[in-house]
């Protein structure tokens, strides 16, 4: 298809290509985050995040356990519900405890079994979120997670990834459209896609440094572009 911004079909194809590029960029770099509460059900320790409507889910970055407090005096005490640190939002009027949960694995959970004292969380596969101890009534998991972007729709939509990365999205969109044509167009398109991946790798390395500093539990993938065929 000839590049023609006035052609609706071309617009739709270009938008699809850029949306795909933005989703890939977010997947490779974990640059987009969101924080949402998950209502925990007493007795339930396993949750499928995608089935629960967290459609933009990629991986969890940080999980805090929110426990309602009936007595604000108790809430100010350190220790919380077996966690590592208490992070009150407003110590003077606190009505909840926010306890950072450390990550665990199913193997560690099996090894500890009933001996576990501190609540931990884990994730298995692409969306199975679990806790090693049963939550109590009213508790929530406040989950900061890497997410997929919202699709661009219409002329005025703005990509969610950082402004500095918008240029490489254009490269991706152009590269993908050229790639479909084969021959010389594909060669040009492949070069643009390669540039996009190099930009994603660079951004991912920056996000990794920031994630480590923030104590996040997942970092962006370490891309090896030489391994790509």
């Amino acid at each position, binding site marked *: 298809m000839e590049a023609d911004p006035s052609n609706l079909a071309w617009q739709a194809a270009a938008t699809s290509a850029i949306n795909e590029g933005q989703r890939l960029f977010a997947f490779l770099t974990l640059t987009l985050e969101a924080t949402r509460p998950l209502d925990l059900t007493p007795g339930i320790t396993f949750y*499928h995040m995608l089935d629960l409507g967290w459609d933009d889910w990629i991986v969890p970055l940080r999980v805090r356990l929110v426990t309602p407090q009936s007595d604000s005096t108790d809430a100010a005490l350190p220790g919380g519900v077996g966690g590592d640190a208490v992070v009150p939002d407003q110590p003077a009027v606190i009505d909840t405890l926010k306890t950072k949960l450390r990550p665990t694995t199913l193997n560690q959970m099996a090894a500890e*079994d009933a001996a576990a004292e501190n609540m931990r969380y884990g994730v298995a*596969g692409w969306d199975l979120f679990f806790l090693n101890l049963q939550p109590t009534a009213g508790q929530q998991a406040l989950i900061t997670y890497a997410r997929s972007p919202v699709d661009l729709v219409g002329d005025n939509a703005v990509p969610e990834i950082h402004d500095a990365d918008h240029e490489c999205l254009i490269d991706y969109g152009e590269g993908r459209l050229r790639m479909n044509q084969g021959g010389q167009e*594909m060669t040009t398109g492949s070069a643009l896609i390669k540039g996009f991946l190099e930009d994603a790798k660079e951004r991912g390395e920056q996000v990794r440094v920031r994630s480590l500093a923030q104590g996040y539990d997942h970092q962006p*993938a370490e891309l090896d572009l030489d391994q790509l*065929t």
Partner: protein
Amino acid sequence: MNFATLTPWMLECLNCSNVSELNPWTIGELYNYAEEALHDIGGRFLLLVTFDGTILLVSGQSTYELDGLHIATIYAAASGSTLRPSTVAEMEALDPGWEEAAIGTPQRWVGNISGLHYIAIYPPPQYAGYLQIVMHKHPPDLTPAAPSVAMPAAVGDYLLLRTLERARQREGEMQMPDVAQALGGLADAYEQAMRAYYGKGAL
């Protein structure tokens, strides 16, 4: 994620404006390519992990049938008590008569008794209860009639790229090996991330 939402973009990548223009491919064939790619990564990476707490433990019964899509058991518990993983060889070394053991409080699960779809509990439970299992599962089918699979959006894009790769590999006038190779290379980038985030699978 509804794979059907990617259909217009998939058609555009094949230089078709609608399904009726698909030639030599059919929409069913393209879905087959996507499904094969999904099943491939579903075994190679630890993507679909599910919890099943619905298997009823029967007093005195040691063997239980698992979900038909089961690939590997990762964790098992009997009525809330964690069971230790064991192999048949380990059980034979531990107790030569383990298959006819007397009922008691379940301590172990054995995953390689008979193919992929059965699990044994040792000793057989004395009381009824529930077997709770976390398992690595094979992804479901992906067809035009059932295009939705609970998966991250980026994995849908990965399936699209593998679909286009296979479509462009197909012998005939529309074959474009260079395009297929380039699309496959891009799909490999997704695989690097999936391996990093979700881990290697059992197959």
